[in-house]
């Protein structure tokens, strides 16, 4: 007898869960840096174009495909792809990327998430407040990561303890399932995250110009640094690619998470309006809250000259070195520091639980393993595979995982998905499926965009990558020779994992066939 499928509890629950998956560290750290580096306000032109031509169409594609596959009892990409192209025997193997991609991101994301929890704790205990210089914060971070022995921490152990706490929290939420775990957490964490974000944004903007010696170092001019347009940037292909990359990164498309989440919907549940609502919630967090925090705050305290260096120092430096310095200079800074890092932690955990779900769903629904056992199996595998990013961080392992997981595989996954839905499944059926139970009539122009424009943009990004970066990346050009064995070892581990996934897919389908044959015999 078929067991009862997991379902979402409420409409708002699923929207918050998808938005929670999309709202991550990148919204608060990556977006403002990308905008400031790529033309300021003018960046919003390619950004919004990419949102309309790539982001929103892909959101609808994933919600639609996920709910369709869910109707056949599939909750992960291999089964969902198979349900869209039933006669093809290979397509289910292409769906492996919808499990492999998120798992790969999970291998380092939970570790970074644990830094946020640790820094929230160190803000409250006053350890961050006692640091007085930029160098001190850099030493604190590298000491915490176990990269250097700067005397603040003795090795990687404190970082590992926070990783363990974060990992157990993640597993606990996943253990309680879609409705009892993920939905419950997102119903609390997302509103709390927005509350913290708005409190911080108001605090930053109302700092005005706290330094009387520099009256032009104000929060409004800080917003200007982000928003004053540089139209010459629009002539650069790199700026357009950066905008497309940011849209991909921020909406969680192409990685199989939305496919899995929407597979738990019922056939007549709306996907058109829900998808758009989740995307717009993410945009609110990114553009309005994210754009009002890091860059304006750094501008106030470092001024127009140094802000360029600060913006180019990367997202981690901004979040874990620059921001704590700023909190040390404002009244009740320890509390605001805690709010900042805890907000990042909430953004992190609502994303990491979502990237765990495709793997758990595959074990549960394709291999017919009980949820609790599936979570345990996933937990052991994930725990072991998280170790390279923790212990070999300074060997460039985390950066390599990030490239494959958050850049390459999501573009590849999205290209496969959209070609499958718009061209193989057929745009007519896809359009009809999108509008089943829809509370929003999607403008007809999106039929054309989904069929022609979005796949063309995605193929162009892939071709561009193969033409410019492929060989350099594969052969690890520019990588320090000491680090090559570590990165190569991790890549071989990933390859073995990919092969293991292919075998599991084969096993699952063989088992399914045998069960179907037995049921037919019984009839």
């Amino acid at each position, binding site marked *: 007898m078929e067991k009862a499928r997991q379902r979402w509890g409420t*409409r*708002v629950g699923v*929207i918050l869960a998808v938005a929670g998956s999309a709202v991550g560290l990148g919204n608060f750290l990556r977006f403002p840096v990308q905008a400031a580096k790529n033309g*300021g*306000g*003018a960046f*919003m032109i390619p950004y*919004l174009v990419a949102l309309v031509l790539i982001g929103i169409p892909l959101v609808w594609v994933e919600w639609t495909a996920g709910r369709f596959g869910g109707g056949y009892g599939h909750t992960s990409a291999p089964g969902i792809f198979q349900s869209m192209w039933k006669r093809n025997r290979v397509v289910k193997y292409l769906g492996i990327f919808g499990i492999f991609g998120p798992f790969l991101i999970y291998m380092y994301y939970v570790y970074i998430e644990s830094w946020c929890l640790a820094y929230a704790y160190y803000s409250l205990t006053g350890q961050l407040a006692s640091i007085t210089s930029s160098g001190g914060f850099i030493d604190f971070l590298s000491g915490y990561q176990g990269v250097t022995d700067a005397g603040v921490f003795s090795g990687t152990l404190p970082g590992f303890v926070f990783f363990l706490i974060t990992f157990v929290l993640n597993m606990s939420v996943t253990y309680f399932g879609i409705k009892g775990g993920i939905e419950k957490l997102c119903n609390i964490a997302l509103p709390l995250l927005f509350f913290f974000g708005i409190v911080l944004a108001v605090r930053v903007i109302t700092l005005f110009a706290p330094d009387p010696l520099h009256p032009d170092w104000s929060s*409004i*001019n800080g*917003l*200007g640094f982000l*928003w*004053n*347009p540089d139209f010459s940037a629009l002539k650069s292909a790199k700026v357009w690619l950066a905008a497309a990359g940011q849209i991909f990164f921020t909406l969680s498309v192409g990685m199989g998470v939305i496919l899995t989440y929407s597979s738990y919907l019922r*056939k*007549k*549940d*709306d996907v058109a*309006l*829900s998808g*758009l*609502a989740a995307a*717009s*919630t993410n*945009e*609110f967090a990114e*553009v*309005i809250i994210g754009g009002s925090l890091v860059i304006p705050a750094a501008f106030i305290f470092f001024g127009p000259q140094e802000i360029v260096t600060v913006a180019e120092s990367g997202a981690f430096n901004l979040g874990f070195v620059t921001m704590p310095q700023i909190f040390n200079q404002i009244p009740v800074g320890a509390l605001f520091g805690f709010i900042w890092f805890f907000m990042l932690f909430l953004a992190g955990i609502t994303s990491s639980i979502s990237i765990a779900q495709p793997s758990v769903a595959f074990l549960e629904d394709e291999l017919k393993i009980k949820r609790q056992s599936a979570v345990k199996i996933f937990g052991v595998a994930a725990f072991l595979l998280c170790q390279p990013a923790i212990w070999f961080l300074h060997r460039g392992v985390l950066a390599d995982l990030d490239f494959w997981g958050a850049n390459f595989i999501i573009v590849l996954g999205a290209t496969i998905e959209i070609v499958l839905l718009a061209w193989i499944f057929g745009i007519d059926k896809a359009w*009809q499926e999108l*509008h*089943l*139970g*829809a*509370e*929003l009539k999607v403008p007809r122009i999106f039929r054309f965009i989904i069929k022609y424009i979005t796949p063309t943009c995605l193929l162009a990004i892939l071709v561009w990558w193969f033409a410019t970066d492929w060989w350099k990346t594969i052969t690890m050009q520019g990588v320090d020779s000491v680090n090559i064995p570590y990165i190569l070892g991790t890549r071989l581990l990933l390859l073995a994992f990919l092969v293991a996934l292919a075998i599991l897919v084969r096993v699952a389908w063989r088992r399914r066939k045998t069960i179907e044959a037995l049921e037919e015999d019984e009839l």
Partner: protein
Amino acid sequence: MTTAGWVFLLLSWGMILSLLSFCYGRILRGKKSNDDDIAKYYDQ
């Protein structure tokens, strides 16, 4: 902050807030899905 900066900020914020209020406004009004459409779909 230049005038052009303000224009870009207000336009971007305006677009996102409008989209957000449009979506949640509709969700909160709770328009039910069209069962006839679904029936038609399965009849095909």
